[in-house]
């Protein structure tokens, strides 16, 4: 017995030593910035997000941006992306953030407001790693953080434009909003949407409900059914839960306006337009800053004016009139130039 126990201990010590040795060459000192990017290590990004990369909404918008930058930089060899999906449990997310920070990633993205507290804790322990989180406006500068970026989406702007479209499409003059949780970019989008609808048809009825969850597909479906029963013929909604609502809208022939990612693929006949979150510009800027040695301190915001928010019509939807297009252009210009103020 004793002999076997000793063997186990020896084997364990050996294993530890081997792992330690194996780990050593993998973490060379960062090479001094030279003009030889070919031989450079790939840029390593990790992202922790609350739903799947194919959620047609919040998480997919981020992944789409990362992948397009990866393709532009030259694929896997130039940029490595690690993804943790379905981190709806914040404790799990915190553990993932810490793992990624210690695994040699240069940028760790905490893609969700709810991850903020955990992210700052990890960021304090890894001052040489850069972090980004959103939607948020706080880079922790006041608390002395120099390695945190924040990103926000002025979702109310595209919400307003979608509201204008909804009002022009609605014949019942009742529109329904399937909200997730009354907070963050979802609330901003919804309030902007309501303002947009009322700007075109002040006597419209805008019905708002919240499911209390970002990912409860069944609850979103029920909310959509309720809106349609209450007379709504155009619907919108926010967060990854909306696929449930879109399924119902498709079944009952109600129209849909999307936000975050394009949802046209799910229901090409009823999705009219989408406010796209395009994080590409933000991420490129963050990566450039990191490569230049600045690890944080900038708070980004997606707006219609800076191109981070885009209103994209679904080309498969036949009901877009020239007047609608013109009204959308007017609204976008008005918001960009400040003539129209959309209150979040």
């Amino acid at each position, binding site marked *: 017995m004793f002999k076997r126990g000793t063997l186990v201990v020896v084997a364990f010590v050996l294993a530890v030593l081997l792992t330690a040795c194996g780990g050593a060459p993998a973490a060379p000192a960062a090479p001094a910035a030279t003009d030889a990017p070919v031989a450079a290590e790939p840029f390593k990004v990790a992202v922790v997000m609350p739903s*799947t990369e*194919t*959620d*047609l909404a919040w998480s997919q918008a981020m992944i789409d941006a990362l992948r397009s930058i990866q393709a532009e930089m030259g694929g896997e060899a130039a940029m490595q992306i690690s993804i943790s999906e*379905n981190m709806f449990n914040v404790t799990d997310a915190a553990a993932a953030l810490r793992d990624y920070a210690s695994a040699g990633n240069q940028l760790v993205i905490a893609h969700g407001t709810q991850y903020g507290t955990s992210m700052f804790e990890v960021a304090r322990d890894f001052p040489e790693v850069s972090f980004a989180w959103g939607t948020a406006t706080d880079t922790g500068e006041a608390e002395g953080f120099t390695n945190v970026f924040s990103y926000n989406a002025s979702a109310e702007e595209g919400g307003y434009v979608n509201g204008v479209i909804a009002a022009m499409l609605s014949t019942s003059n009742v529109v*329904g909003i399937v*909200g997730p*949780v*009354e907070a963050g970019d979802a609330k901003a989008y919804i309030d902007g949407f309501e303002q947009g609808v009322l700007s075109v048809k002040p006597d419209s009825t805008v*019905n*708002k*409900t*919240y*499911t*209390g*969850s970002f*990912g*409860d*597909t*069944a*609850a979103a*479906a*029920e*909310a959509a*059914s*309720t*809106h349609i*029963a*209450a*007379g709504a013929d155009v619907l919108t909604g926010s967060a*990854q839960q909306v*696929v*449930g609502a*879109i*399924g*119902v809208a*498709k*079944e009952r022939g109600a129209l849909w306006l999307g936000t975050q990612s394009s949802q046209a*693929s*799910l*229901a090409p006949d009823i999705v009219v337009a989408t406010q796209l979150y395009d994080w590409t510009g933000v991420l490129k800027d963050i990566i450039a800053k990191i490569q230049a040695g600045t690890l944080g301190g900038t708070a980004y915001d997606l707006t219609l004016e800076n191109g981070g928010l885009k209103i994209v019509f679904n080309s498969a939807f036949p009901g877009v009139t020239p007047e609608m297009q013109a009204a959308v252009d007017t609204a976008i210009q008005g918001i960009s130039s400040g003539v129209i103020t959309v209150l979040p």
Partner: protein
Amino acid sequence: MEQLFTLTTLTGILHSTIRLATPYLFASLGETISQRSGVLNLGVEGQMLMGAFAAFFVVVTTGSLLGGVVAAIFVGALLGLLMALVSVSFRAEQGISGIGMYLLGLGLSSLLFRLTLGSVQSVRGFAELALPGLSSIPVLGPALFKHSLLVYVAFALVPMVAYLLNRTTWGLNIRAVGDNPQAADTLGVPVIAIRYATVTVGGAMAAMGGASLSISAVNIFQENMTGGIGFIAVALVYFGGWRPVGVMLGILLFSLVSALQIWLQLVGIGIPSDLAVMLPYILTIIALALAPRRTGQPAALTRPFNRGMA
């Protein structure tokens, strides 16, 4: 406020109530059968998810709704068998093995979804079926008799399960096994076989509850789409005192409040949405706390049967 008392609203609330009750009915009635034989199956949620996925996958690939239903029942029964193996044959702690079943269903349905379909898509599920004549009754007609087929099936199961449990030899055996398996065993009732049967049927019904979401109410599959329905369904069995009609009444009350809170938000009554979405759960807790009787509880619930050990 007055908008809440219009006929449209009333019909809408009732219609939502009936539709919302459907997945709970399948799952809770199955769980009732299982618990009456003495087995607590806490893995309903996982079985629902697997049923939801199996049905959805078959409908996507073959277009056959019947095929989807058969697939859900098959997969649910299989998981029921597994649950029976663990909790009846291996006599595992039922609460723990149920959690295991939940995690298995959650993980496996997500994994299979990724490997096969990959991204969110929708199917043409069961359409609403207006029952001729009945559906033209004012207010109640469109609320009660304009639903998809699975909704009617779910409600038809209530008297069927009640009949099975209370009026058949089978039911008598199930109840005997759930109350006093040792006594039942000495009388020659096959305790193990009966428990295998009830847990398997319970699994199949839970899976149908999942299918009623993915190919009837929502027509989409998404990972973790049941969002806790399976756990509420287990609570509603206690709530309903282990009697099918009682369980149905509990489900209707829960669904009514769930439907009501959406309408309350919709008509803009001014209560915070965070509070509104909590209402059905608060109600369930209050009702569970106030429910005085535990008399309906099968005496041997959660106790594994071990011949020769009382």
